[in-house]
């Protein structure tokens, strides 16, 4: 649905040049919920703005839906035939891509109805058709009774639903979401994410979702790209990224979304819970969808004569697949513990020794 290749964007600021996009290449499949995560300033907002050309990249190519390959050169966009894209053409392209924002960006002086009708007006559409379409959209986001209310009377979650309805008015194939849940409370966040998931399934909508929260990625995305300093440092299926984060920044994000991250704090505080004694090792175990956690643990304990003291444990469900994590103290003879870890590795349990009591 979306292909970008070798996209670059540099902002020339008074304080110096900022590289927002550094040779970014991504391929986002049809009907996918694709997450882009990064800290603020990583370039993810620029990336999403370049997808509907609100921002023109300095170079690279872009193709969204049936747009054809758009070539970007010197801050100008050229269509597949090599013609420079006019404001009008860009407008037509943008109408095929919906976008929602962190702060909703509704028109305060227009009712909910008028906000949703905004993209339909002045398009040659008949008044009656506009009205029918707006109510169809209001039903889609479950806000029919709020048609004549002004945005100031809505909650954050409701405002975002209006924004979603507005973004979908022209039946786009793609929806761009720029931190759409970052200003919402946890309940509203969940409701909006559920709505996005529903829309993705019902309409086959491709969603590109920008966020700085790994929990959002975990709950609805299928694939994720991790950005840092304008570069995509890691990209893949969400499950794989959670199971095997490679880049340092990805590890940080993954641990931020994990209940096991508590161990870092406990260690920092010098808690006795996580301090191994002379014959103990503190290890982190990660269980994948293709290994059965409990069985392996009891085997290790029985066959290797190793004492296992579980400090923290957690099972995440990502895209219907379990991902287990455990922080445990393994105690016993040095040789036995080493053999136990080896056995675990052989059984596809990823092990990492965090602290060793014998050192």
């Amino acid at each position, binding site marked *: 649905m979306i292909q970008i290749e070798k996209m670059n964007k540099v902002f020339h600021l008074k304080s110096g040049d900022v590289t927002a996009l550094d040779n970014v290449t991504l391929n986002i499949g049809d009907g996918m919920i694709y997450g882009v995560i990064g800290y603020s300033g990583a370039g993810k907002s620029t990336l999403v703005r370049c997808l*509907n050309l*609100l921002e023109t990249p300095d170079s690279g190519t872009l193709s969204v839906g049936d747009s054809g390959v758009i070539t970007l050169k010197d801050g100008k966009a050229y269509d597949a035939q090599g013609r420079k894209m006019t*404001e*009008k053409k860009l*407008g*037509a392209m*943008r*109408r095929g*891509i*919906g*976008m929602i*924002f962190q*702060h909703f*960006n*509704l*028109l*305060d*002086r*227009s*009712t909910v*109805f008028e906000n949703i009708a*905004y*993209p339909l007006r*002045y398009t040659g559409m008949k008044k009656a058709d506009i*009205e029918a379409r707006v*109510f169809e959209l209001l039903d889609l986001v479950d806000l029919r009774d709020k*048609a*004549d*209310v*002004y945005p*100031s*009377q809505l909650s954050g979650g409701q405002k975002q639903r209006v*924004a979603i309805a*507005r*973004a979908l*008015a*022209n039946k786009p194939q793609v929806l*761009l979401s720029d931190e759409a849940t970052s200003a919402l409370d946890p309940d509203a966040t969940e409701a909006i994410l559920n709505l996005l998931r529903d829309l993705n399934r019902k309409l086959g909508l491709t969603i590109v979702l920008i966020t700085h929260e790994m929990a959002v990625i975990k709950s609805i995305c299928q694939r994720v790209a991790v950005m840092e300093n304008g570069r995509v440092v890691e990209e893949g299926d969400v499950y794989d990224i959670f199971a095997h984060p490679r880049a340092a920044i990805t590890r940080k994000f993954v641990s931020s979304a994990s209940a096991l991250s508590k161990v870092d704090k406990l260690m920092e505080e010098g808690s006795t819970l996580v301090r191994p004694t002379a014959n103990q090792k503190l290890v982190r175990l990660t269980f994948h969808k293709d290994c059965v956690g409990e069985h392996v643990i009891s085997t290790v304990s029985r066959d290797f004569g190793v004492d296992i003291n579980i400090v923290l444990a957690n099972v995440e469900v990502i895209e219907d697949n379990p991902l287990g994590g455990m922080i445990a103290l393994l105690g016993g003879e040095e040789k036995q513990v080493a053999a136990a870890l080896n056995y675990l590795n052989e059984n596809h349990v990823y092990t990492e020794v965090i602290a060793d009591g014998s050192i």
Partner: protein
Amino acid sequence: MEAFEQLIEQIAPNLYAYRDRFFTSFAATFEMFAKAGIIAFVVGLFFGVLLVITRKGGVRQNLVVYQIVNIVINVFRSIPFIILLIFLIPLTRAVVGSAIGVKGAILPLVFGTVPFYTRQVEVALTGVNEGKVEAARSMGSGTLGLIFRVYLHEAVPELIRVTTVTAISLIGLTTMAGAVGAGGIGSFAINYGQNQNHQDIVNVCVVVLLIVVFILQSLGNALARRTTNRGLFRKVHQ
């Protein structure tokens, strides 16, 4: 009505004696206010919009146009109106054929009002959240759509407020137009009140102007409130 006339005759005998003069002066002030006001409204709005869309990061960034308008406005804002009035005499004569009377006062009044109003409009439009503009762009709106459907639409209450302020200051400027023989309340107060030592005439002029300003301000406030639409519930559908 008769009782009222008697009352006026009693408390302001001189004004009563010159009441016809007073009415023509009032009419002249109103004419200058209305004509210059309408022109300044349109021109100021135009330049205010132009500044906002051509500024750095604007939807049609053009720093050359921006700087030219910006400098011209600053120059004209720095000239005291009474000086501007006589400075513009040659231009007024060339444009409207006469530099005196109400006819000759309109152009300087426009020049005196537009820079101030343009700045006010610029500030009002700058208050429109850029996020709304970006959202409208993402929905395919072009420059005209952004100007009319986002900037001007969202800034209506603020535009009403700044228009009220400008209208009140325009009334102040019209009182100086007497310097080019345009008549009006201002020259009436000086020629018939101050110069002939008729304090009652000056007093009545002050009261009348106060009432006009008060009405304008109340009207502006009410309109601005009504158009804000916060806390209003409007049931239109079903």
